[in-house]
């Protein structure tokens, strides 16, 4: 059930690119794990409980607080320039 196509799709969703041997061993482990999950078939699912809810009044009041200062961001960043985080060129005209 974990064929090459599934593995490729999973890697795409996961943003991972596995080495061929890694891919093969993970595929067989996954298959093993997934077949273990079949134990769930023996139990009836019940509706997920939505009673554990809050009311809008319980939520955060709409007031603002000061944000990060620039130095902190810059210290976190891998590459930072002119106040911006920098990444390799995004090749997509669909920006917004």
């Amino acid at each position, binding site marked *: 059930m974990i064929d090459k196509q599934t593995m490729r799709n999973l890697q795409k969703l996961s943003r991972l690119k596995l080495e061929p041997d890694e891919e093969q061993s993970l595929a067989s482990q996954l298959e093993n794990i997934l077949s273990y999950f079949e134990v769930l078939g023996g139990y009836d699912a019940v509706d997920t409980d939505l009673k554990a809810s809050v009311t809008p009044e319980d939520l955060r009041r*709409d007031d603002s607080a000061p944000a990060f200062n620039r130095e902190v961001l810059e210290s976190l960043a891998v590459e930072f320039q002119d106040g911006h985080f920098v990444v390799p060129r995004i090749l997509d005209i669909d920006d917004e």
Partner: protein
Amino acid sequence: MKYEVVIGCEVHVQLQTRSKAFCRCPNTFGGEPNSRVCPVCMGLPGSLPVTNSAMIEAAILAGLALDCDIAGVTKFDRKHYVYPDLPKGYQISQFDMPICTGGHIDIPASDGSLRRVRIIRVHMEEDAGKNIHPDDGRSVSYLDYNRCGTPLLEIVSEPDLRAPQEASAYVQAIREILRAVGVSDCNMEEGSLRCDANINLWVYEDGKKYATPIAEIKNMNSFRSIRNALEYEVKRQVREWEQSRLLLEVAGKTTRGYLEAKGITVLQRAKEEASDYRYFPEPDLKPISISREMIDALKARVGALPAERRRRYIGEYGITEQDALNLTSSAAMADFFEAAAAGHPEPKRISNFILAEVKKYLNQRSIGVDELAVDARAFRRLIDLVDAGKISGKIAKEVFVDMADTGKDALAIIEEKGLIQIDNSDAIAQAVDEVIVENPDSAADYKNGKEKAIGFLMGQVMKKTKGKANPAMAIQLLRAKLK
């Protein structure tokens, strides 16, 4: 070739709250890049979202204003996709339990009738950051996360729109409504209102209906570009149909971007690659239950909405549906009308004057009623002069143009120009006598029962008095003298 244009819109609106959707960073426009970010909206490890109550309130207000049902329980979900402007790798959005469902708004259709546009759902989500592609020759992009976490509403319509100008009118109507309830400034230039449209054609040939492939049009940044982009797209799809007869079932959905400078749409993504968003309920946030009481309290705040105003104009003022629609085309226009008509026994007359004379003036000069030099109270003084018999309705039209051009008051203008109506019976009687003498044939016709002749004679009296004769008085005297 007989075809129908089919358009549905997805409108994103930024909500005007003080803080962002899930953190306390200020929710304002622009600012120094990355100056309004914190661990939460930056998606730093270990940070957790905390829902802003004002976002929920604004979403309910918007939903009520759009005639939606408000959910008793709503929840947030994670929508996963990878893009550098999305710091967590997922967007907090709503999947299967949106806060509002099933609304509608009415807009003027292209054929002059009323078009009801159904709204499928309105849901809350957080905005992403912005990418900037610097022109410095380096192959890099810059990221600014200020916009990240701005509360958004996504408003999804059924494909009920039948023309490009209807799509533009629909988005304008949404802007009017959401501005009226004060949840957003809906500024397309600043991106606080953004619209994507799905458009295709239903082609009718040999008694059959064919659907052409749907194109999702993006990058439409003004009402004009919505209309222009979709008009272009209609032409393109007609051409494509004639050339290839490509069907929706075969070609599916594509994404196209509008290039404003060239006035064309270009392909961005061919046949929609099924995006797998892997939605699941946001475990960091609890479901929210919304009480009937809260909805009722907010209903009271959804005051004079266009639909509600139209109902009142039609029901209480006896104004036609079409006129009511025109009066509520903008909140400013409706406000102007209501202020001018306040306490007037015949609001319909005021509506007629506005829709004819005022609209003509605005259209000729391409300005809005809020830019007019005549405010509602000055306008009402003009109407009051007509009511008092000081000037005729016809003269009032000229006076209005003068007022609007000069900003002067009506009374000043009519005094200055000597336009005050003659309601001195002697002066009118003299003019009537002269007209009867000068037009013996018409006078005879009337006496012989040709009722129409009185109109001609009336015209002559008005001409003689330069339009200043009180028309009621003039006609009364004419009839008396020709008896």
